[in-house]
């Protein structure tokens, strides 16, 4: 094995270059529970004033609970669609024989790395044409569909690791391919379903551009659009408030992140963010 001693100069150097990230996220927490002091960044006094948005509406921005509810519905629906459609299509691509299978696989792989944000203009126009513009359903369908190639790809990978013997045994015992899939194979890939669920939930939870453009109405504001609205409000310049809302919004993501770090490393390794 390669010798791995602590090399202090290197560690300190890495600490310095990582400092912006560390500072930003430590102060996200600190500032959300302290009085903001304009001439110092150190917290002087503990306060819950920044969390007032939980009990009262910020004038002109609506209730955070509506946004939270919408975001939960949005993210969960995306998860449901992505997981169900990916686990069927992934299975077919991994295990079933059908015409044009190779072409389907090629398409999935091609779209998997396609930067879907470039399609936003034509998706906007198409939703206007079919009457799904400015509806939560429209954004859910779009987001789920854009996540699908990735989901199918991941699920296919998980199905590929299931031993063929399990299926052969099932088929020999007289079960149909559907029964084999449902009763024997699905239980084997539960970790895959869990990983994909978590990933699509986080993707849905964080999504900003799609709801901003495709559902701009106030009633269906998602957390991301709600927070962006606060930060861009020229009459508000209250970073204590912004950070409290931000912390409130990021909690589920951080919980998932700390429990699933290693899995995420693999998934983000093939990610499509800039």
């Amino acid at each position, binding site marked *: 094995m*390669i010798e791995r001693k602590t090399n202090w100069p290197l560690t300190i150097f890495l600490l310095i270059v990582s400092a912006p990230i560390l500072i930003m996220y430590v102060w996200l927490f600190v500032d959300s529970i302290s009085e903001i002091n304009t001439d110092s960044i150190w917290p002087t006094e503990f306060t819950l004033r920044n969390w007032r948005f939980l009990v009262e509406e910020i004038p002109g921005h609506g209730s955070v609970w509506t946004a939270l509810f919408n975001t939960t519905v949005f993210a969960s629906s995306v998860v449901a669609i992505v997981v169900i459609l990916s686990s069927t299509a992934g299975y077919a691509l991994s295990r079933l024989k059908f015409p044009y299978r190779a072409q389907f696989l090629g398409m999935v792989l091609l*779209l998997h*790395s396609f930067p879907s944000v470039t399609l936003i*203009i034509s998706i906007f126009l198409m939703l206007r044409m079919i009457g799904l513009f400015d509806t939560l359903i429209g954004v859910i369908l779009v987001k789920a569909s854009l996540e699908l190639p990735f989901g199918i790809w991941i699920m296919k990978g998980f199905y590929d690791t299931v031993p063929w013997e399990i*299926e052969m045994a099932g088929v020999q015992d007289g079960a149909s391919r559907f029964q084999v899939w449902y009763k024997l194979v699905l239980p084997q890939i539960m970790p895959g379903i869990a990983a994909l669920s978590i990933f699509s939930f986080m993707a849905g939870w964080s999504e900003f551009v799609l709801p901003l453009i495709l559902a701009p109405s106030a009633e269906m504001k998602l957390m*991301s659009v709600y927070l962006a609205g606060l930060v861009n409000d020229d009459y508000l310049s209250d970073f204590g408030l912004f950070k409290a809302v931000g912390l409130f919004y990021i909690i589920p993501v951080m919980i998932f992140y700390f429990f699933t770090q290693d899995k995420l490393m693999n998934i983000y390794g093939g990610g499509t963010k*800039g």
Partner: protein
Amino acid sequence: MERIRSYLPLWFMLPASVAVALFFLIPVFMTFVFSFTTMSSDTGILGSRYVVSDDTIRTLKGSGMDAALLEKLGSRIFTFDEAGLAALRKSNLKPAVVKEIAEKLSGKVYTSEKKLFNALKRLNNRPRSFKDRKSVSRSIVQTLKNREFKTAEEFRAGLASIGVEVAEDVFENLLDAANMSWKWTTSNYSELMASDFTGKILANTAFYVFFTLFFNVGFALLLALATFYMPSGQSKFFRAVWLIPRVSPSVIYIMLWRWLSFDNGFMSYVLGFFGVEPENWLNEYPWTFVIFANGFVGASMGMIIFASAVVAIPSDVLHAAEVDGAYKWQQIRRIILPLMAWPILFITTYQTLSLMTSFEYILLLTDGGPGFFTTEVWALNAYHTALSNYFGNLRYGFGATLAVMLVGVGIAMSLLYLRLFDFKKLVAEPQIEN
């Protein structure tokens, strides 16, 4: 049983295929289609629109159309027809007034409000106040100007309602001039070529991509190598820290950069110790922050790929080098880096394409500003042109033309990604015959 078996792949593939086709494949194709249209928020998206505006009248005047007719097009006309009377009944005028109007004035047409008011004054139950007379005129007024007609027939009826009857060829001319619907065109492409802004935005995009990439790939390599030589606790810590920006919702991550750089933020505070006046650093050095914000997010992808590539290097190769007494630096330069040429090339190309098409972080950080087009890149410009600008007219067609270039980049990117995989192995035939 036999039937279920043979249709199973269809049922398993269909839902996902439909979703992907509808909201992924068709939009790719439609981007090209839209780029050949003049669609905008003025023309609308669906169906035709015919509107006579001041602009239309001016254009027609220029083309030498009969001045008296044009005068009429812009005029108002007051008609006590069925629709007018119905509107009167709904107004808050006294029923007696309405009744007498219906009896005596039904079918009458007035070409000016003054003539209408004179006629009203001759009634027994006349509307007393100016407000009431106005209410009558408002209820029955007919105009053509700025009214929207969906079909040529409606437009003809609209002309008739203000008493304009024209010959068929004149009508065709009017209809053509009033047609506000979108048209097929190739002018978007020629406009893109001719526009003064194209160069500026291309230069911005090149600047942004080059420096962010430099930052991205550089830090990714540095982190992957540094964490490789570190005790596992430390390396885990640093990798986890650098992944935080990527898992954070973009809105929060950018909000934190804004906090770091604003007048009362962290930078101003720290620089205050060195006697630097507090400033909004983001406005002062927008590019620096755009590149940093994108670079810190982007580095994590390279970091993960590079880290797994370093781990994959057989350790006896590295050992042999150590026995030879090679220094770490030499080990990196002579053994690790050459073996990582392919991942580095891949990440560089992939990130180049990816940065060209992304705009979310810039949108949130500077929105292309401060000022005019300072940090406006191609993808952001497409968004601004088609979906959000301060000029009011959203140019969907032209925006789609800008997006076509990005879709092209996206296709190149996907093909590159496809190259990375051993496709033959991927499509290996299933082992159970259906």
